[in-house]
């Protein structure tokens, strides 16, 4: 999702020219990661879609002010988070929610087919290691790896410090490495 210039251009076209095509492109571009992000809060796919759709509706309705938004990607993530929290609050399912309550589904790791560095068994170990990460760690890992967000952006979205991101990603990588190191004791190839 790291196409900063493209997003800026869509943002401008929507704001200045009511450009519905740019609006659609922005939606198609941002929908998959935002939907997953919303699912990690509200758990139900249909509700998550409604959350993302609410965010895009208000974006269209406030399109005149859109040019003032500094980083539209961060704005969208934060809006999805706030809308999801509002929904949870209304449902009274949860009065407060922290990132440790998030349930994050990660894309399964897959390796460069040309290299085939890892055996199937090792891949399974890595998957298990990633799945076993605590939620906070998982969501950060996901936003960096799958959504291509910068540390500063994630810090703003999740309301945490850059230092926390440094730590959490290091934890995730160390865990994966440990899963691999167990195998190292045997000859690899």
């Amino acid at each position, binding site marked *: 999702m790291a196409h900063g210039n493209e997003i800026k251009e869509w943002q401008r076209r929507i704001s200045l*020219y009511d450009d519905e095509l740019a609006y659609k492109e922005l939606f198609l571009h941002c*929908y*998959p990661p935002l939907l997953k992000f919303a699912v990690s809060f509200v758990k139900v796919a249909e509700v998550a879609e409604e959350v993302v*759709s609410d965010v895009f*509706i208000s974006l269209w309705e406030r399109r005149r002010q859109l040019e003032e938004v500094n980083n539209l990607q961060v704005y969208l993530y934060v809006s999805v988070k706030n809308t999801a929290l509002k929904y949870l609050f209304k449902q009274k399912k949860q009065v407060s929610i922290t990132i440790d309550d998030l349930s994050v589904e990660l894309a399964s790791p897959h390796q460069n087919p040309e290299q085939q560095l*890892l055996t199937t068994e090792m891949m399974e170990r890595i998957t298990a290691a990633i799945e076993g990460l605590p939620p906070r760690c998982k969501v950060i890992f996901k936003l960096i790896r799958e959504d291509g967000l*910068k540390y500063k952006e994630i810090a703003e979205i999740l309301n945490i410090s850059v230092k926390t991101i440094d730590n959490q990603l290091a934890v995730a990588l*160390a865990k994966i490495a440990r899963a691999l190191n167990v195998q190292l004791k045997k000859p690899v190839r």
Partner: protein
Amino acid sequence: MNHKRIWELMGRKLAGEASAEELQELGSLLRAHPDLHFPVEAIMDIWKTDPGADDQAAGEDAHRRLISRMQEKGIDIGLSFEEQQTAIFQLEAQERKSWWRYAAAAVVAGGLIAAAWWWRPVGKPASPLALNEVVTKNGSRTAVHLPDGSQVWLNAGSKLTYNKDFGNGNRDITLTGEAFFEVAKNAEHPFVIHTTRMDVKVLGTRFNVRAYPGEKVTEAALIQGSIEASLHNRPGERIILRPAEKIVVTDEKIQQENTKGNEPVMEVRHLTYYEENKAAIVETSWMENKLVFRDESFVSLAARMERWYGVTIRFSDPQLEQLRFTGVFAQETIQQALKALQMTAVFNYSIHGTDIIINQ
């Protein structure tokens, strides 16, 4: 063991956040820890996600649901001409059904109500204030479905006005700006479009009328069927057009100001095509979301770009107004369009919000 620092730096490297110094530091740390070479390599290998994971169709479906939710909320969005047409037809079909139900109920109730409805005096003039008006802003367009079954696509910066009783004996409509008409056949009641300089009378056909205030010419371009034009300043004359012809009327007042003064007041020309293909007609290209111009002066192109993009364009030097351009804009933004024009002529521009100034 300083593994924690290694993974922190690895994370920064993978995320594209590492500085040159940090990369150097990571390099020397890794040299000191050969046991980590394999896991580091493996992690770099699996870091990239599968690009085929995202489902494009799911996004398209979600977008469709988004747009229909917005329409339910009354937000004006998301109707490409084709979609809007079907949407209106559906609406129309529903209305007709409920009307039939109402009529049937009335008949059952003794025929009185229905009779009263049918016996209503025909041709009674509607109150002069009962006007329907459809207006498009610069930068936006719309489709209008008229009560008689005709379809009108209204280009940017245009206005369509008709009586509330349109289709009920009369089919008179007034246009300022540009519109494409697909007129439903009705031999008894001709469809008449009034513009400032010319009236166009039709029986059932497809054509484009362009009558923007401030533009030197008014024109009607015929795609299918036949139309009859009459000029306000020559009431006796009737000009009949055949398909692929257009009538171009030049404003006399503006013409007199023009030093050349030898342009005809009215002439019939053939339609122009912007590609080999005869379907690519310049006059109706706006319907395909294209802004087509052929050997057009910058001042007249700028007026069309103002409507197309919803901006205002001013020239700081009148000489620049006379530059001439040929080309097609489709998906281009205003900036891309201006940049493209800069490739064939020397000028500069500055953009302040929606104000654009063209200068030397």
